[in-house]
């Protein structure tokens, strides 16, 4: 199954971003009601820059890997830059062929990130 090729599974197993941040600046959580994927993003922001980022929660491999990818992308960016990240960017970054239902799994992390800016 191409979707579950080794690099993807490796991200799943070894993501440096899957952990809990102590005293995060911002926390946002989103759930995919269709399947029960549940994601929390934690950011530590200093001088407008995302110094640390992590994710927690449970969900399918795609949602988890997508979260890991997204953390990698936003780390070191400013809030303004992070705010500009669109769904299309994320899908392109992931480079996976996804069905419409699995696309939602991949986008969960983007929606969670967008929630950060709603609350900020």
């Amino acid at each position, binding site marked *: *199954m191409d*979707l*579950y090729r080794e690099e993807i*599974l490796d991200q*799943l*197993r*070894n993501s440096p971003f*899957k952990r*809990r*941040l*102590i*005293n*995060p600046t911002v*926390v946002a*959580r989103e759930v995919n*009601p*269709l*399947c*029960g*994927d*549940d994601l*929390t993003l*934690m950011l530590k922001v200093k001088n407008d820059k995302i110094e640390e980022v992590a994710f*927690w*929660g*449970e*969900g*399918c*491999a*795609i*949602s988890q890997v997508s979260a890991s990818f997204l953390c990698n992308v936003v780390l070191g960016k400013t809030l303004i830059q992070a705010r500009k990240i669109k769904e299309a960017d994320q899908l392109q970054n992931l480079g996976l062929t996804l069905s419409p239902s*699995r696309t939602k*799994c991949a986008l969960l992390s983007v929606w969670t990130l967008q929630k950060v800016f709603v609350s900020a």
Partner: protein
Amino acid sequence: MDINKIRKDFPILRRTVNGKRLVYLDNAATSQKPQAVLDALENYYREHNANVHRGVYTLSEEATALYEGARKKVADFISAPSVSEIIFTRNATEAINLVAYSWGRKNIRSGDEIIVSGMEHHSNLVPWQILAEETGSRLVVWKITEEGKLDISKLEKLVNGKTKLLAVAHVSNVLGTINPVEEIMVAVKKINPKTRLLIDGAQAVPHMKVNVARLGADWYAATGHKMLGPTGIGFLWGKKELLEAMGPFLSGGEMIKEVTWGKTTYNDLPWKFEAGTPNIAGAIGLGAAIDYLEKIGMDEIRKHEVELSEYLIGKLKNDHAVTVYGPQKSTDRSGVISFNLKSVHAHDLAAVADSFGVAIRSGHHCAQPLINSFGEAAAARASFYLYNDRQDIDGLLEAIEKAKEIFKLSSKHEIRISTRNSLNASNSKQIPNGENSNVSSFRI
């Protein structure tokens, strides 16, 4: 029951998916259709299409006869005392909403109580939540046992003088639990004879003989598309006196007797509750589905599903990586089997299964509180019907093995899929530092 012969009746089973034989194991979501139902639908539109109850011309009389004939088939199928007690709706969800709207709003008051079981589908939960909110009444949950059953002795504490309604599933769409509705009925009425009982039979009627007269409930809801019928048709059975006392649901044409500018009188049962042009083709299709099921026999179908369940559960139980939910005994459950594979999210398992042509469902199955209550966010679900066979189950088992292979854990790397504590009722959005996170949200 000749499975091979039956399978030939279902054209879709000839399909391949991803180059593999279609193994359709999501019958709890919807069922496939036999040629006889497809023929009935086409035949109606081709030969007899006209609006019902309105025309004096031949075509309209034919359509009306077919439509009302289908109603009679439904009544006989569930042993309803009278055909006028069968109301066609869009589906079971609409049937339940009908009761909430037409009966609930007028009869539930502030301070009253409504009991729902802990295994309800959202369709038999959300309408009551909304009703409780609107009327200022209290929604009480009859929690399930560890085994996924309902303990009748708990009703003594739950049912009281304020209990107006108990809404319960005949068969759970997640756990497969067959609830002893007759006994529940007796127990409830013993404590409060005025409490009404509504049964969600969406997962029962397609798979076993149901006799609504014997069950003693006040209303029984079911849907056509889960029982070989087309989508867009379902039905509500209700006790005649109750339905007669209830105000209409949707209003407009067909459900009226006499209309003036100032006043309108309503039609007799069942048409009082069927506003506008009904799903004529749908009802006829459902009638054809019932004919097909009756020809095979509901007891035969039940027996077949028990055999398949025993086969699958037998295999899954021996697999230490798999957790199966619901009652232990196959006689306590229908052919709906929800399970989880360790360290593989149900979604991913379903994706792997799909690559084998196997269709299983994954997620919360429209029963979020239930899934959450056993400490999970999602589960995989395989559900059978008369056209499934052992080969289908073997296909699923093969997919499970493949998923294990793909997601195999080495001792070094642990894939943390679930961070939940079981049975936690907090709605916390905080991420605690250190200890096991508490991200479950158990609503109600």
